[in-house]
């Protein structure tokens, strides 16, 4: 029953104590690092193309998508929740962007508005935040279990995306100079010093994220309410606010990912991002976070994302059947948590304190 506790005590310490360095964490994340290095080594050996700057950048830009989702997901999971709706949100935000880029007709003025790209981007993110807020309200105000609330929202958002586009895909999001709404593909195509924008965005978000988690009161509130909500509440932590915020943020992250994706493809499909939520969750968990909340940190999550991304890309590059990729992905997920579990099994026996009991449950 103490597995969650066991699996993830060390990172938690680290994160909770915001920056303190500890053997436990080194060991745990050391493992993630090790896995990553192993993956890179193996594939570099198998394919001459794998170990090249170009490829790493490409892979990084693939990781970026999941990485960004995972950052939002981490916040939610730290709160002891889960967000299944990010995949759909990703899809919808892309669709909305596409919709806006096509120009909005205002019949009663008889004009067609072509909002500039930055407006589109902001609106899309706003929408993402809104969806997240809906989750947040359902969960924080109406006390609906996170899993169910976000599951429902996932379906609804996906359906809406399909309805808007009627199942079709918006393309030519390039914009037109005469309309001054060009540059949408900037996100997807441009590079800053050779680094794809997507990666840059991920890095920035990761940096901001760990800043918030380790340096700000909000970060501590999040760890506190994830660790023991009642305790946090009694000591004046605005737990509801925290809860709503994390879901909103997760929504925004999803929207950003959606923008990047659709600008990479210069097209926005309503089914984009299906099942990405699972990959994001996997990344967070491989990164050593506990689904029971209060335990985990950005660095781990990033590592998790890279492990998954580099693995699957590697398999594609050495030309392994996509079926094997499915198998491997699963294997890695299980292995990652299994290793943690085994290492901290001894601890698992330690009498859990009341507060730790929750951990127990979810894990069971």
């Amino acid at each position, binding site marked *: 029953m103490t597995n969650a506790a066991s699996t993830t005590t060390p990172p938690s310490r680290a994160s909770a104590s915001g920056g303190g360095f500890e053997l436990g964490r080194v060991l745990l994340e050391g493992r993630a690092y090790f896995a990553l290095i192993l993956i890179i080594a193996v594939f570099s050996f198998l394919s001459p193309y794998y170990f090249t700057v170009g490829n790493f950048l490409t892979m990084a*830009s693939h990781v970026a998508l999941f990485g960004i989702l995972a950052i939002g997901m981490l916040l939610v999971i730290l709160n002891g929740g889960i967000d299944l709706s990010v995949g759909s949100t990703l899809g919808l935000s892309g669709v909305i962007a596409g919709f806006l880029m096509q120009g909005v007709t205002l019949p009663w003025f008889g004009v067609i508005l072509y909002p500039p790209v930055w407006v589109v981007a902001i609106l899309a993110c706003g929408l993402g935040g809104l969806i997240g807020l809906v989750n947040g309200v359902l969960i924080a105000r109406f006390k609906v279990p996170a899993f169910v609330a976000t599951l429902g929202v996932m379906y609804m958002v996906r359906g809406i995306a399909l309805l808007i586009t009627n199942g079709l895909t918006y393309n030519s999001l390039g914009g037109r100079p005469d309309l001054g709404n060009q540059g949408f593909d900037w996100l997807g195509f441009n590079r800053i010093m050779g680094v794809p924008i997507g990666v840059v965005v991920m890095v920035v978000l990761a940096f901001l994220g760990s800043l918030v988690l380790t340096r700000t009161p909000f970060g501590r509130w999040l760890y506190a309410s994830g660790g023991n909500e009642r305790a946090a509440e009694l000591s004046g932590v605005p737990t509801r606010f925290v809860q709503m915020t994390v879901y909103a943020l997760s929504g925004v992250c999803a929207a950003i990912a959606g923008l990047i994706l659709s600008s990479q493809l210069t097209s926005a499909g309503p089914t984009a991002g299906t099942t990405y939520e699972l990959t994001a969750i996997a990344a967070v968990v491989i990164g050593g976070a506990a689904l029971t909340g209060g335990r985990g940190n950005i660095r781990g999550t990033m590592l998790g994302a890279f492990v998954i991304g580099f693995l699957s890309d590697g398999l594609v590059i050495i030309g392994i059947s996509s079926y094997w990729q499915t198998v491997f992905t699963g294997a890695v997920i299980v292995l990652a948590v299994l290793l943690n579990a085994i290492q901290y099994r001894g601890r698992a026996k330690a009498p859990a304190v009341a507060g730790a009991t929750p951990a127990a449950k979810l894990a069971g």
Partner: protein
Amino acid sequence: NDPSNPYWLTEGNVASAEAKKLGYEANVGASKGDTNAESTLIDTAITNKSVAIILDPANASGSVGAVKKAIAANIPVILVNAEINQDGLAKAQLVSNNAQGAALGAQQWVRAIGQKGNYVELLGSPSDNNAATRSNGYDTVLSQYDDLKKVGSQVANWDRTQGHDKMQNLLQAHPDIQGVISGNDEMALGAVAALKEAGKLSGIKVGGFDGSPDAVSAVKAGELQYTVLQPVAIFSAKAVQEADSFIKTGKTGAAQEKQLFDCVLITKDNAAKMTAPFTMTP
């Protein structure tokens, strides 16, 4: 695309076989209809310094970006099976003539059920414009017969299970139908199973599209009236050859970018001629 459908599987196999024959190393990946997965595949193809990419676009519009990327990395792209909504990008787009095939199918279908009656249609996933092309093809023919009424239509996303379930629902809503016309074989076979279960197979005629082995055997068994063979084997082989010639000569050797390959009708009579999956020896 998704290799859990024999059609796309053959597409991949034939192409890679042909490529190997021409002395290339072929590497088949599946986008499963996800444009992002597709673009990932393209990226890795670029990483792998591929000499040419033969792509079955996941999405008429969604794949444009991916193709652009490959072009940018100046790797020639040749599209097979489905088109993209932007010309001048790919070196060639080899697709089966869906419109012609649909017309062909529709006519045969009319012959099967006669000039009058109610029918329902099973549609492929709307994001794939073959679905629309075929559906229109059917309509243009069938609308000529005033006594043929389409009483219902459902999207079954090319999938057999959905074809089965949706068919059962449609049967409930419209017990009085004589025919089912389907956007592809998987859905058609799903429908056949549903009808079998309802014991209505004798009364209701089903028509498919693709010419997949399962469908062919069903045609042989008389469960399926006909299917329309897409010459996937032919054009995927052709695609490789064109790629080859492009790499060597800089030209695909074909007149124009869009090349339509006519489909062939498979009925009980000529079903026997199906030697290998999707290949018919006259």
